[in-house]
């Protein structure tokens, strides 16, 4: 009996798992679950082979081809990073963000917590300084060796070039003079031929010089991998030193509690001295104390001015895309529903849809920046911005006009899919369902909310899913233009940096953007499946 119970219980878990898999459209997991339950193992293994192993293999192939091809493709502006370089860049990005996090933490630490940490950090700093010195030396060595070897390579050519230049200069002069005297005795045709030959000779000589120069330039431009690694090492050491020294600073005098303690001490001293002070000084000191109190309040409310890090930018981008998506949906669904309900309204709206739908985010953004700027002339004091800053959770995002403009751009570019789908969904409600409404004599609202909307929800959600996808694509471009803190800005900053690892960091972003987009799509699939019913549009 209990055995049977257990069996039904495990069956139920299996059923539940399969349902979840179906809901989230993670079909490739289905054979895994079935295999665990020992259901037709051979079939399941074949399925796993097809739906799990093949994609993984394909991805590995892609990485392999990339790794093999990347080192062969170089431009003057940079080189295509290999997968390992990209993964290094990923680590660098993470390190930067971790360091900023720990600095922020250090700013807020209490006296008891920070003192041991400070000692530790100072010891680390000392050690890091020595390694940094060693790294500096290593760079100097590598560069010296590089210069020496290049010099060896170039010396001969540059010597040749020098002699060639001087002999060429002399010979040209002598030949030219000889030619000039000779020309007096020759016919004009012959003269022309002679001069042509001379010119030919000259250009041959300059070509020769040019090729020598090019050889030199090529040798000099060669990147020495040893120098490269030494420089990378040096950079990482120097950054460590820089981080540790500012970390120590934050742990000591720039720490919030230390600052407060300093102010308190000052106030106390002033209060003490006030007792002995005469009337005139008393006024001054009382005033000073009040100022200090004021400052204390400000310090108390202060936070560490943290540099933006990629994780934070990702969160802000996601928030921005959802803000835009929500705005877009709030606009698109009612209009789409009205279009579906009334063909007159549809006729009125169609030209706008046709006109605005193809407009690129690059056009919307500057326009919206101006419009938002018009509504929010002074973000510091504007009620909306203040409210958004003080709001829980989203206050962290520091929503500003650039954020709003980006979100609105997302909305303007993405709402069309939802709008068109909503119109289609409402217009194509099953006639039978409408007859039910007629028989029941449902009023307009009841008909709308009980029959029409539920019936068109699957299509509306299908549209929203497309919208979110479009929005995510558009957002990166919008942030890039608006300088709104987010993934787009990260990419633009990296592009602007033009450092040797910038290209690799942009590759990291490719994967981040793709991954987030995938997650967003999955979320929408789940929603779409939740509102779907038999006979409605199938989720892909």
């Amino acid at each position, binding site marked *: 009996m209990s055995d049977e119970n257990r069996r039904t219980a495990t069956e139920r878990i299996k059923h539940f798992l399969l349902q979840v898999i179906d809901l989230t459209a993670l079909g490739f997991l289905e054979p895994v679950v079935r295999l665990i339950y020992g259901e037709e193992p051979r079939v399941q293994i074949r399925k796993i082979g097809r739906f799990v192993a093949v994609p993984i293999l394909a991805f590995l192939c892609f990485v392999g081809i990339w790794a093999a091809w990347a080192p062969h493709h170089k431009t003057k502006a940079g080189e295509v990073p290999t997968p390992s370089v990209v993964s290094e860049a990923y680590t660098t990005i993470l390190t930067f963000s971790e360091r900023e996090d720990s600095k922020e933490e250090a700013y807020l630490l209490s006296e008891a917590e920070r003192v041991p940490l400070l000692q530790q950090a100072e010891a680390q700093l000392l050690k890091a300084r020595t390694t940094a010195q060693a790294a500096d030396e290593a760079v100097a060595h590598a560069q010296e060796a590089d210069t020496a070897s290049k010099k060896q390579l170039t010396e001969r050519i540059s010597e040749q070039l020098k002699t060639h230049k001087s002999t060429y200069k002399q010979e040209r002069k002598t030949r030219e003079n000889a030619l000039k005297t000779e020309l007096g005795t020759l016919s004009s045709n012959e003269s022309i031929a002679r001069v042509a030959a001379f010119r030919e000779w000259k250009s041959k000589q300059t070509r020769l010089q040019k090729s020598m120069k090019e050889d030199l330039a090529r040798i000099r431009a060669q990147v020495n991998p040893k120098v490269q690694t030494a420089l990378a090492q040096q950079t990482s050491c120097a950054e460590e030193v820089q981080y540790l020294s500012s970390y120590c600073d934050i742990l000591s005098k720039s720490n919030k509690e230390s600052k407060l303690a300093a102010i308190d001490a000052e106030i106390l001293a002033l209060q003490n001295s006030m007792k002995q002070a005469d009337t005139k000084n008393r006024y001054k000191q009382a005033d000073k104390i009040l*100022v200090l109190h004021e400052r204390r309040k400000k310090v108390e409310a202060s936070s560490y001015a943290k540099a933006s890090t990629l994780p934070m930018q990702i969160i802000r981008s996601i928030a921005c895309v959802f803000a835009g998506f929500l705005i877009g949906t709030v606009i698109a669904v009612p209009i789409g529903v009205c279009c579906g309900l009334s063909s007159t309204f549809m006729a009125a709206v169609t030209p706008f849809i046709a006109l605005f739908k193809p407009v690129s985010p690059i056009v919307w953004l500057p326009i919206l920046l101006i419009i938002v700027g018009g509504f929010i002339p002074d973000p510091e004091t504007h009620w909306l911005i203040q409210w958004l800053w003080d709001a829980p959770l989203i206050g962290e995002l520091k929503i500003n006009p650039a954020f709003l403009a980006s979100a609105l751009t997302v909305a303007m570019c993405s709402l069309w899919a939802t709008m068109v789908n909503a119109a289609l969904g409402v217009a194509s409600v099953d006639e039978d369902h409408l007859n039910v409404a007629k028989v029941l004599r449902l009023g307009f609202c009841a008909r709308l909310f009980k029959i029409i909307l539920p019936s068109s929800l699957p299509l509306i959600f299908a549209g929203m899913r497309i919208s979110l996808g479009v929005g995510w694509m558009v957002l990166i471009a919008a942030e890039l233009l608006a300088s709104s803190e987010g993934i787009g800005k990260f990419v633009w900053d990296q592009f602007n940096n033009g450092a040797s690892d910038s290209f690799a960091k942009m590759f990291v972003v490719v994967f981040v953007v793709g991954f987030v987009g995938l997650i967003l799509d999955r979320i929408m699939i789940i929603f779409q499946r939740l509102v779907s019913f038999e006979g409605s549009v199938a989720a892909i």
Partner: protein
Amino acid sequence: MLSSLLRHTAIICASATFCLPLHTAETEQLELEKSELKFGFIKLTDCAPLVIAKEKGFFSDEGLSVEVVAQSNWKILLDNVISGELDGAHMLSGQPIAATIGIGTKAHIVTAYTMDLNGNAITVSNSVWSRMQEADESLDTETPPHPISAQSLRPVVDEYLENGEKLQMGMVFPVSTHNYELRYWLASSGIHPGMYSASDVGGRTSAEVELSVTPPPMMPATLEAGNIQGYCVGEPWNQKAVSTSIGVPVVTNYDIWKNNPEKIFGVSAAWAEENPQTHLAVVKALIRAGQWLDATDTQGTLINRSEAARILSGSNYVGADFDIIKNSMTGFFYFQKTDKRAMPEFNVFFDHFCTYPWYSDGVWFLTQMRRWGQITEAKPASWYAETAQKVYRPDVYREAAKLLLAEGFITEEDIPWDTDGYKAPTKEFIDGILYDGHDPLGYLSKHTIGHKE
């Protein structure tokens, strides 16, 4: 002789003040209206004072918590300062003036701090450089004699014109120092860089060389793509061209105008009005940052520049590779891979009373705007002075300096206490024409190309 001696002592004093104050002097915090600030910058090494003031704790000494945020271009940066999104920013010297008189976006912007002198160079593409070498043999060595005038470019320009094309060059913004420097360099050799007018805001009327706007970080890529044949930009974008072998810097703006003002720290007039004490505190911190950047040891070696280059190479600041930023920041400049020259004054952040907001600087930019037609009608000399006084705020600077002097961070001779705001007339231009800020109209009339009044 005497002046060099004086300078020497000044250096000693500066370095002494640098070493000591950390322990002895302390800043007197002001009654700040606002303590959490956000400043914008463009990824160029001359944003250094802002970054250093943050990273070396000069802002926090004043009780300020400052965020420094990279902006994608000069227009967005200015818009953000106007909208209040940014409290202040690293700006082109021409920007506050242009904004105040209404060239481009109109808004009253003021400055109480000049961030640096010099720091730009003009780079040409490899092919233009080899043609210049063909035309002028003296350039055909690994270390050609400097300064190279635009005369050497003349044959190339003519060649283009003969083919019915025009040489294209990039600069960073219509009212940027780069635009005026590039025009000055070309015009000083008789090459017409084009005039602005009410109907030609691109500034290409009667141009022999056409100039167009490209954001600084895009310069090397645009040059390599062949859209432009040369550009004038700040660092690290000239050194980047050398290290990636896509172009050759031919002249620095130090040669075009010795110790010319480059960037300023700009805030909106409304902000300055509302936050006078905060403004003061910011200027104090920036003066100290400039001083730190130009600190030297007894041999005259810049001691902090390597550290500054390291800080600037952080990906949230300038972000370029350290060894590229290091070149110009530590007083060297590569004209070619084989041509490394000492240029101790390539970037000046404090010496020569650099940080003082000089009226005469403002007047010079106004003369250039008039010369090239951005100011469409002739103005009286008094207008130049009045406009400069609207934008430049030496009063704030002096008050900040006074406080720093009292706190022991700077010495008497660091600040030109009794100036009338005009630098001494100078002839140190590539064409040797005398500039006197008191006489803008006379200065305009001395040039052959451009408006003369």
